[in-house]
């Protein structure tokens, strides 16, 4: 088989895959896509290892004003502290070539500054973000003990942080789940900056 034929077949394979690359979304009730991602210290976190515990995934970007506001207000850290049995993982899916990309050192400094003690994982190629359909920072996913998504969407109902009374959807979801009640709402529209995927 000649060299060009190899290239053309490869091109066709790529062509065949392109239309199938539509953005996936992790619906409520569906199994949460498994992943293994490194934290700031390089330690690998494998989602399947947390089976049996409730996991919260929070898409973060220290350069996004929405993420930053919640960090400054302590929205996530307070919610995580109120549900100390829950595994809370931040995920940064910013592409390495994007201006918003921060090195692990800078992310660690940002986390210290804002009292963030939960692991923040790096997903620079965006594969995990795409698998979940994460589109904003912040974007929240709550996964139950069996590994199924039970909430996806916004952290709260106050995009600009100026409401007199906010509903923290993640807190409500964790509280309801702990009480054995159905999560309502189980899905909301997230708000914030777009996830700065690499491509």
């Amino acid at each position, binding site marked *: 088989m*000649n060299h060009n034929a190899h*290239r053309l*077949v490869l091109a066709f394979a790529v*062509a065949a895959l392109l*239309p199938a690359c539509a953005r996936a979304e992790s*619906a409520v009730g569906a199994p949460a896509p498994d992943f293994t991602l490194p934290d700031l210290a390089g330690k690998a976190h494998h989602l399947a290892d947390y089976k049996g515990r409730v996991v919260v995934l929070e898409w973060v970007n220290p350069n996004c004003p929405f993420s930053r506001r919640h960090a400054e207000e302590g929205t996530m850290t307070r919610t995580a502290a109120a549900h100390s049995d829950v595994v809370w993982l931040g995920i940064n899916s910013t592409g390495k070539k994007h201006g918003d990309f921060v090195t692990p050192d800078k992310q660690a400094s940002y986390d210290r500054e804002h009292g963030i003690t939960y692991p923040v994982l790096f997903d620079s190629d965006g594969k995990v973000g795409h698998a979940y359909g994460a589109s*904003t920072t912040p974007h929240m996913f709550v996964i139950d003990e069996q590994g199924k998504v039970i909430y996806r969407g916004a952290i709260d109902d106050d995009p600009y942080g100026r409401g007199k009374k906010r509903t923290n959807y993640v807190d409500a979801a964790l509280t309801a789940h702990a009480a054995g009640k159905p999560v309502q709402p189980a*899905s909301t529209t997230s708000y914030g*900056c*777009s996830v700065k995927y690499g491509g």
Partner: protein
Amino acid sequence: MVASRLIAGAPGADGTPRLGLHFRLAPEWHVYWKHPGDAGAPPQVAIAVGGAAGGAADGDGTAFQPEILYPAPQRFRLPGGLEALGYAGEVVYPLRLSQTAPAGSTITASVDYVACAVECIPYHDELTVTLLAAASPTEIAEDELLRKWEARLPRPVEAAGVDWRLRYRAGDAPEIELEVVSPGLPSSGGEAPSASAAGVARTAELFLEPAPGATFASPERVADPRAVRFRAAVRPEIAGKAPDPLRVAWTLTDAMARDVALAGVATVPAGGEVGASGEGSNAHADAASRRRRARGSRVPSAVIVALLALVPLTAALVLWLIPDRLPLPAGSPSWLRAAGFLAAAVLVWFAYRLGTLLPADRVGAVELSWLAVALAAQGAASTSTAARRRLWLALALLAAGAGLWAAWSPGMLSP
């Protein structure tokens, strides 16, 4: 990045103030529609009608939320396959107030919004405008600006005199299909659409708001010379539980004329269809679940069929001819390789475009047929005997036929 102001036009017929939130944006920046797409957030406005300068006023200063009206948006493609829906350059959001305010009143708008380019910046502005007693040059200019953007508000489809159909296909890959036939795009017979209507319709875009229990993938245009047709995958919020019935709120731009948008809200049962015939004010809603049987509505346009046939056949030809089927200059076949790569790139582009035109449930089958064609053609190119080459080419044609069937068969296309 963004300049904002509150503008006032002449009062409405009911005496309520006509206000607008005017944004001018630097290049690359945008603000958001009521459904912002994959990111962002729509603006939030609180209005207070304050004391008039030197006179009494209706307002007591208590803030209330006006209804924000949204002109037809634009679509912005973002990295990672995301999209934002909103406005670039300039926009006026008309505001609908429920209370009157006399001339001389000062109106204050407390506005929260986010503007994005590469970065996003949330803003909070306190904007004021004083309602003038007599039309000044400033008020006349603001009134004209407000009217210009009020004219860009989507018109209710029921009043637009167009035929429209909304179908909801349930199953493992639920999707909706919206078809709108404007007066310039006849729905039946052999009459060709007018050039201007067809030109406008080519730029048509569909915008969908999230539904209770589901969101929608970015709509894909379906080539159809008789209608403006879009399909969009339905993404249930609960896995495997697509809403039934499904509420669909849609806005369609440029289907009738440039800068004219239509909007509709319909509730459609799974496997069913709703719509109306465009007979001016006599438009009526069709019965739910009515199915179209007209063959013309099921067959994809000749363009898609022609492309589906051309792509695999061209691939077979290219693979057969390159490199040893042409007289190559000894030792320097680079030009031919470049031509081969160029042909491959064109084919990749065609493949991608087809992927955006076909509904999701058929793309996979068509893709597989293309791969089979490529492999069979490759076999034809590498074999040394004429009989085997004919066999491989026959297989390539068979695979191409399967691809056409996948895209064209009534069974695949039926709701």
